[in-house]
């Protein structure tokens, strides 16, 4: 009798263990089914030739479905350490054009040289630092690499890494 009980108990535990392994495995499979597809992941690069841009006129590129602001500085605009990048002879701001508050797309006012988010009145300077309103942090900087006069969005180049190192330290 005793023997039977423990045998039954063992079978129960063994069945439980098999079921648990199967359960975890299917959860992993389900999670991965929801992951972005490989084609989505590999479509993550955009190249922009910045040599032809006009100073103080906002250029909007699209990377991973997000608007990317590229702003060429005029001679009298001061580059900021850690937020401006030099491509060729000019300085630029390269930023994800989504307000860090709730994700609206701010507009650029070239006479005042600043960004204004109409949604809740957030404002950013030309290099993307928040200067007023609810946005909690500066505009994000997308990973980029400089290749001559083109900007490769989606790849982490040395300039980008240097910028991030600075942001991390601040």
């Amino acid at each position: 009798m005793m023997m039977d009980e423990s045998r039954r108990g063992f079978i129960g535990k063994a069945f439980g263990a098999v079921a648990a392994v199967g359960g975890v495995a299917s959860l992993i499979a389900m999670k991965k089914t929801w992951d972005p597809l490989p084609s989505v992941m590999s479509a993550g690069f955009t190249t922009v030739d910045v040599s032809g841009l006009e100073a103080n006129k906002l250029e909007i590129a699209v990377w991973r479905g997000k608007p990317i602001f590229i702003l060429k500085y005029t001679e009298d605009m001061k580059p900021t350490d850690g937020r401006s990048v030099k491509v060729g002879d000019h300085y630029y701001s390269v930023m994800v054009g989504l307000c860090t508050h709730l994700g609206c797309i701010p507009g650029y006012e070239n006479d005042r040289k600043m960004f204004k988010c109409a949604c809740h009145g957030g404002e950013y300077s030309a290099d993307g630092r928040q200067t007023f309103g609810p946005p909690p942090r500066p505009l994000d900087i997308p990973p980029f690499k400089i290749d001559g006069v083109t900007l490769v969005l989606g790849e982490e180049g040395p300039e980008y890494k240097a910028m991030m190192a600075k942001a991390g330290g601040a």
Partner: protein
Amino acid sequence: MAEFKPAGSMYEWFDQRLGIDKFVKVMMTEYWIPKNINFLWAMGVLLTVMFTLLVVSGIFLLMYYKPDINMAFDSVNYTIMQEVAYGWLFRHIHAVGASVVFLIIYIHMFTGIYYGSYKKGREMIWISGMLLFMLFSAEGFSGYMLPWGQMSYWAAYVITEIFGGIPLIGGDLVVWIRGNFYVADATLTRFFMLHVLLIPLAILGAIVFHFYSLRFPHVNNEAGEFFDFDEEAEKYLAGDKKNSKVVPFWPVFLSKDFFVLGFFLLFFFYLVFFHYSFAMDPINFDKADGLKTPAHIYPEWYFLWSYEVLRGWFFEIAGISGKSLGLIAFGFANAIFLVMPWLDRSPMVKPANQRPYFKYWFWLMIADLMVLTEFGKLPPTGPNAWVGFGASLTFLVLFIALPFITKAEAKKVGGK
């Protein structure tokens, strides 16, 4: 197997195999409902009818809708609205229904709070009801996205973005939920699946559970009176219908419900035929554009109060950013109703107007929700931002104060 005698009629044949007689008794003719309840208790039946209407109209829309970012907008605004005979009718029933169902849910919910129907043995009814509310919210939101208009797109964008506020995993979680780095085709197709299959299934399950949990403590009544349902039922069955405090669900109680339902459906179809546009935002008749935000984003009216709690916090307090504070408050607002039965520490089950302190709390809460709803729709700038902040704060304070208020009340009334 039991031995089956030859059946004398078709009814008997089925009765032998399915126990129809018994079933009808348990579910309808001997399911007891208190006599003294008013029209507010009809909301459950109204909701059941609304849900059915939504499912049926949804099935018809499903035949022509295309869950693909290139076709979705036209399949709704051209095919269903222009080509399909009566397609407009099903769309309007569905859209107005989705809006009105929340109106009825809120009435149902606040009736429960007003009469104390979440207390003493009725906790599971309350919890399953709140679960239903959450599922309906998810259902409403996932459906709102499907027409792929500008407001749909940006609502989906903002709501999925909320998950980005979760520490550490937030960013990856957002990409995972969307299936892309932005709201894209993958997002549309998975929300489509949620809207037409998974969430409705869960809702059906929750409805069954909600009804089941009602069977043990029974329906509350207008006076919050406690009585023995079995005793009252016996009286009724013995023929003393006048003195019995209960009536059977069918046909007596339902006849009253049908009366309310009749009025409700007149109102509902009046909206469907003459005022359907209130349920459709004009911005949603522009096709979704991920590179152009509408000047002002807001959700449908029934989410405005919690949306306002989310964005009411526009400055940082004690080093926590306004955004995080908003998220915390939003989480609080959405979870707090769930624990109502434990926040209310007064054992008395009475309508709010007979409770010395709770009555003030109740109407303050309703007023605050109205302010939140009103300001949730307005642009949050200037003084609006401050009203929004004040109302969000009031909401939190009200719920934090509830246990103390009700405890004091219990002392005052019963001394225990």
